[in-house]
């Protein structure tokens, strides 16, 4: 009785706080903050689109499974409920942004919402065609085979966007299952999700020896838990040569044979050609965007660039939503360029972020824009430059896809030799006319940690301001948001000699 009373009391005490939070996240809250009806309408449009998608998903689930079935499905995959926080993410990311930049930021959240609902439909209604695909195996192949691709690691990135603590249970579960606590929390989240039986089972798994030791080794456990056949592709250490490409292409062919044997998928080379051509088009659009990003001040920045690439190129290559998204991004960037409107009004410092971004503190750059005028221009995950895929024959397409993977960010940066890592940073610094390099120093990423000493000395030689920002990719308990912000403040004060840093806006 006493506890019940305390709970009720606690609820009423917390009401003003909840009401304030709710109001701040509402369209009205946005309008009052921005004081621009036009921006509020942009925000309202995407707010409504995102909720529309959520209602569409729930409605379909209720229609197809009935109320009891729907509850059963949601108990199987309780993380799906995190999607209800999508508009909170929208609010955090769009805070203080205006016009085309605001729209580009909202656009990426909307695109992810649309595509995620499509993925959830595949999990619920077509489980027999679901392939568990590690994030560094080209999904285009399985897509061309008529399989639905589920990136096992996807929720380890996406859920912390929605709620910084969303993956903590998964991380703890993995450690309780015996995984070494010092390993990458991103891998632990995937393993924990599997251990909790919240990972879709799929009809088969394809994985690889990338991006790191923990990621690679975890697939023995994942396979044991899911109990489905697995194929693992192997990228050689020295991959910038024809010999390695040939070996990897043969490996991909073996993977196709494996998938044809163990799944309902059948290779359709015409379909692969279509996907590759659309992917080429996406790459062309992205290159156009990059060209505009080189201009200072930049017409777009931050999530519009990195989050778009991270989600759409890696998970939805060639998808019509991805293509439309990039077309719209280019239009918005061009509009800002033509009208000479900078994305960040007070752009003072142009930054590159190296290593994976900050999923549980996704709005750190939004805060930095407002506090210091730091504008995120490029990041290592997006800086994936390569030739367009030659679609003339199946062999050339596989070769093109193998190059994208082998020379992709997490592969060429996290393994060595050191030049792959260092040269890319300095090339990027020069190409985009940057002012500072940020290293997202994820404690679980041993390979990147072991490059910091050399990088620090090289940056000193070249007089490049370097911030090595300690954090954990998925687990905010390791370094708190306050701890991350104070590292930035110290850097701005001591290295950049920023006068009178403005108080951080929340």
């Amino acid at each position, binding site marked *: 009785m006493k506890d019940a009373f305390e709970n009720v009391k606690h609820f009423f005490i917390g009401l003003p706080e909840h009401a304030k939070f709710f109001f701040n996240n509402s369209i009205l809250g946005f309008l009052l903050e921005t004081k621009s009806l036009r921006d509020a309408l942009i925000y309202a449009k995407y707010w409504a689109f995102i909720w529309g998608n959520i209602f569409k998903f729930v409605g379909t689930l209720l229609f197809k499974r009935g109320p009891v079935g729907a509850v059963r499905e949601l108990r199987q995959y309780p993380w799906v409920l995190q999607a209800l926080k999508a508009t909170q993410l929208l609010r955090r990311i769009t805070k203080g942004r205006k016009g085309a930049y605001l729209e580009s930021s909202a656009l990426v959240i909307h695109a992810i919402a649309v595509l995620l609902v499509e993925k959830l439909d595949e999990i619920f209604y077509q489980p027999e065609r679901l392939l568990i695909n590690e994030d560094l195996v080209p999904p285009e192949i399985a897509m061309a085979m008529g399989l639905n691709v589920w990136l096992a690691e996807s929720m380890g990135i996406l859920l912390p966007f929605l709620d910084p603590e969303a993956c903590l249970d998964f991380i703890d579960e*993995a450690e309780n*299952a*015996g*995984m*070494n606590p*010092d*390993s*990458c929390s991103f*891998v632990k989240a995937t*393993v924990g999700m599997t251990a909790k039986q919240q990972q879709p089972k799929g009809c088969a798994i394809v*994985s690889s*020896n990338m991006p*790191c*030791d*923990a990621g*690679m*080794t*975890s*697939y*023995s*456990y994942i396979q*044991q838990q899911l109990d489905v056949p*697995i194929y*693992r592709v*192997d990228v*050689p*250490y*020295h991959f910038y040569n024809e*010999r390695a490409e040939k*070996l990897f292409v*043969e*490996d991909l062919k*073996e993977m196709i044979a494996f998938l044809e044997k163990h799944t309902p998928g059948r290779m359709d080379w015409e379909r692969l050609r279509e996907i590759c051509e659309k992917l080429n088009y996406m790459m062309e659009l992205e290159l156009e965007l990059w060209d505009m990003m080189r201009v200072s001040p930049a017409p777009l920045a931050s999530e519009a660039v990195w989050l778009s690439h991270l989600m759409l190129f890696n998970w939805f290559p060639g998808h019509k939503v991805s293509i439309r998204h990039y077309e719209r991004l280019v239009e918005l960037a061009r509009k800002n360029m033509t009208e000479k409107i900078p994305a960040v009004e007070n752009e003072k410092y142009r930054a590159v972020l190296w290593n994976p971004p900050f999923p549980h503190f996704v709005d750190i750059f939004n805060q930095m824009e407002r506090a210091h005028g730091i504008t995120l221009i490029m990041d290592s995950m997006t800086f994936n430059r390569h030739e367009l895929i030659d679609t003339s024959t199946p062999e050339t397409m596989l070769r093109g896809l193998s190059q994208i993977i082998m020379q992709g960010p997490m592969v060429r940066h*996290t*393994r*060595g*030799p*050191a030049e792959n890592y260092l040269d890319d940073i300095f090339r990027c610094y020069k190409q985009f006319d940057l002012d500072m390099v940020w290293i997202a120093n994820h*404690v*679980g990423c*041993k*390979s990147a*940690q*072991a*490059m*910091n*000493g*050399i990088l620090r000395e090289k940056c000193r030689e070249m007089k490049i301001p370097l911030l090595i920002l300690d954090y954990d990719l998925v687990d905010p308990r390791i370094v708190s948001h306050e701890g991350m912000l104070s590292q930035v403040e110290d850097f701005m004060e001591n290295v950049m000699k920023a006068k009178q840093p403005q108080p951080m806006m929340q």
Partner: protein
Amino acid sequence: MKLFQELLENPQNQLFEQAVADGRIPIGYSCSFVPEAFLMADKLMPVRLHAPGVAGTETADIYLSNFICTYTRSLLEFAIDDRFDLIQGWVFVPSCAHMQRLYDNLEYLNKPKFSHVLDVPRKVTDATIAWQIEELTMLADKLSAHFDVDMSDASLMTAIDEWNNFAAVIQSIGELRKKSAPPITGTEFHTLLMAALVSPKNMILPKILDFQQAVEKRDNAGEFRARLMVMGSHLHDPDFIKIIESQGGLVVADLFCSGSIPGFKTVELNGNPIKSLAEHSFKKTLCPRMMEDFDRRLKTIIDTVKEYKVDGVVIEIIKFCDLWGVDSMSMVSALRKEGIPVLKLEREYSMGGEGQLRTRVQAFIESMGK
């Protein structure tokens, strides 16, 4: 035994120095995927890199960070301090992220005159064996050009013969451990093994043969409560085994990087020495870096447990090693499913935390009812 212990006191021991004075060319390596026989051709001499008595890794920590395994950091620290000054070449394997970055940092801080990355694939198929053959051929050409050594088929066949004779002796000593009352302790065996890995084989072999004769005359190695197998990553310091044995657990089998199972397999010849060595690389090593190899490793462990009448398995993992750290999650549960008691220990490269180790081993042996 004292001689073998002395040989482990320095990264470059007296036999090693003597061999260098005689014109031998020492090549350092740190991974079991490097076929030792390959580095025994002509004047070459393989040396397993170790860092005995490493007191701290302050300089290496600056470059590699505190999150890299202490074996890697210790090697870099010794390299920066020129403790490997007689080693004329380094052969790396991108066996893990730590070793890959050791190569990068070494190249930056104290670039060796000769270094090579042997790109060993992570799975075994016809295509990857062919790749490994090409890799060894390229390494042979590079060694031959740099050191003016004979890496011809004939020279490699001689080296393989020498290795096979040597490995056969080690194996025969290892066989003694299968006895119900083994005449050799795990500490002695490991001391001998490590001494063999860091010394010229031709110079240490007579001493090993003498030791073998003496051991064969023994009835047993003393009274022990349980028979244990130790498996895991790099384990160089025999004191680790000594502490386990001090609690009454005789270590009868060793399935770690620098152990004899299956590390000291003889090379099966198939007419082409490089092909034989390429295939041998995969057979002689059981490492979680290899994909699709879990079942083979598990089977080897279970077979070894039966063959050596092992009561319990100790898995030792160097802190921050993701390969063994993540793999042990599946391995521990798989072994327990088979009814094999398992103790998982995290440790640092150099010996430390002896009291804790004693307590855990003691509790483990007691939990087995021994």
